[in-house]
């Protein structure tokens, strides 16, 4: 399997809302704390997606392989 995600926009008009929430969540954190927050977030989102095919494709898209 070498398929990647097309990256179609699904947040629509909530994209800026999400970005603000994301940045606000990181506010005031040390860099290491931010990295840990991202790790937790990735794991939580992966569980929410719950589809290994999609997750594998997402990883390929993000790592550009």
């Amino acid at each position, binding site marked *: 399997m070498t398929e990647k995600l*097309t*990256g*179609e926009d699904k947040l629509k008009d909530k994209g800026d809302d999400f970005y603000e929430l994301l*940045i606000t969540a*990181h506010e005031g954190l040390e860099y290491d704390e931010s990295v840990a927050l991202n790790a937790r977030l990735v794991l939580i989102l992966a569980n929410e997606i719950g589809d290994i095919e999609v997750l594998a494709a997402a990883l390929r898209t993000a790592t550009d392989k």
Partner: protein
Amino acid sequence: MPHYENIPYPFKRPLELDGKSQQLYPVAIVGAGPIGLSMAIDLALHGIRSVVLDDNNVVSVGSRAICWAKRTLEIFDRLGVADRMLEKGVTWKVGRLFHGEEEVYNFDLLPDDNHKMPAFINLQQYYVEQYLVERTQDFPDLIDLRWLSKVTDEELEDEKVTVSVSTPEGNYTLDAEYVVACDGAKSSVRERLGLPFKGHTFEERFLIADVEMEQSPFPDDETHERWFWFEPPFHNGQSALLHKQPDNIYRIDLQLGPEAYPEEEAKPENVIRRIKQVVGDRKFDLDWVSVYSFTCAKLDRFIHDRIIFVGDSAHVVSPFGARGGNGGIQDVDNLGWKLAAVLKGAAEPALLESYHEERSHGSAENILHSSRATNFMTPKSKMEAIFRQEVLNMAEHLPFARKLVNSGRLSAPCSLADMALQTPATSPTSIPPGTVCPDAAVTQNGKRGWLLNHLGGEFILLTTGEAAKEYDPEGLKKLHVSASETDETDELVDVTGTIIAEFGENKIYLVRPDQHIAACFDLSEVECLPTALRRANAGSMMEAAE
């Protein structure tokens, strides 16, 4: 040497200086910038007299606000000045976004054939003000524009405000029923009232420069482009913007970073060095330079008794998205008809409260969008910078990331849905109340025109479809849109079919004097119209005709 020659307007000795006038002015407007002048014109179109007081005697020095959005142009069209602005202005066509050397994406800004006004034009503030000043001269009995007249105090009384004015030939006072403060971001009216102006100041410094240049930096001289860079290759700041104004003037915005020394950066030799990095070897003259930082802030209340704040005096935003001047013109559009109705006794002063409700909401939305754009341009931590970097890296190939790139969300009118004046629609198949009525090409008596040119100034009932055509209540101006050619000379024809498609068939729309939809009904609901009309006037019965 600046390209535009600021010609001073003369000071005219007012009657008050010689104690010859005791009259009560309906409205005193403080400030003759784009907002104050538009306010005076809008009121004059409603037959309301105003005196406009400005401490200066020239239009804007420097180009300042240059991007005027579709909704603003529609309002300027209602005020009778848009044609000149369109003719002189540079209409946006293509936008390109770069990350470093690479173009990430470009977007089409071409005008919509079915709308009279383009998405945006660039036009220097001095032209906008000049055209507005000239338009005020069409109302010699209604607009009394006084240059070199500095307002130094305003004293609130029961039925009026006494305004103190200082001029080169002496001081005087005049009485007005309402004072409209259009005196800008540093409003001295606001200061004198001691009103808190709460918000967020960004530390980032920006340099804006206007250069006059014969040779276009864009690939095609005829296609006006707007280039935005994140991490531009030619300067070490975070972002840059290049776009064209009339008279071969190009605006260059450079984000300098919080550590920049404004005085040092504004020195011509430093500015010229930076501009050369943007435009290469093309010959240019430096026209105007300004180094600025900015604040996003607004008043808690836009109305204080008989003093009403409009434009930058009520709210300020960062420039990304062009929401400052455009937001202010929308304030004018919102307030004009309401203040006129109250002064004529056609509505209760409660109607003014809806100006605060609707425009405070609008300015909060503008502040939200412009703050987010500013945050995207100025990452404040290593992690924030990484997120920004990766959004930009993915933007070329992944559409969702492109949507997150935020170089400013361009000014668009806010929705006034669910607010006091609007009646919620029962049918989902309509344009939602609270929305600005969309424009469309129409014909009347075989002559081409535009829907919005037939709306505004007073409440109008807009009907679509043959069945709704018969509905014609007394005391309200009615406008019927026909799907096909008609012999009725007062009807509009929906030549492209978009009005019926967007508005629905057999619908009845109540359109406010500021072209916003107040209510929408199916034919079976017409008994709700009187209630909706009362609601749109804040509970008072509206007088039949203007």
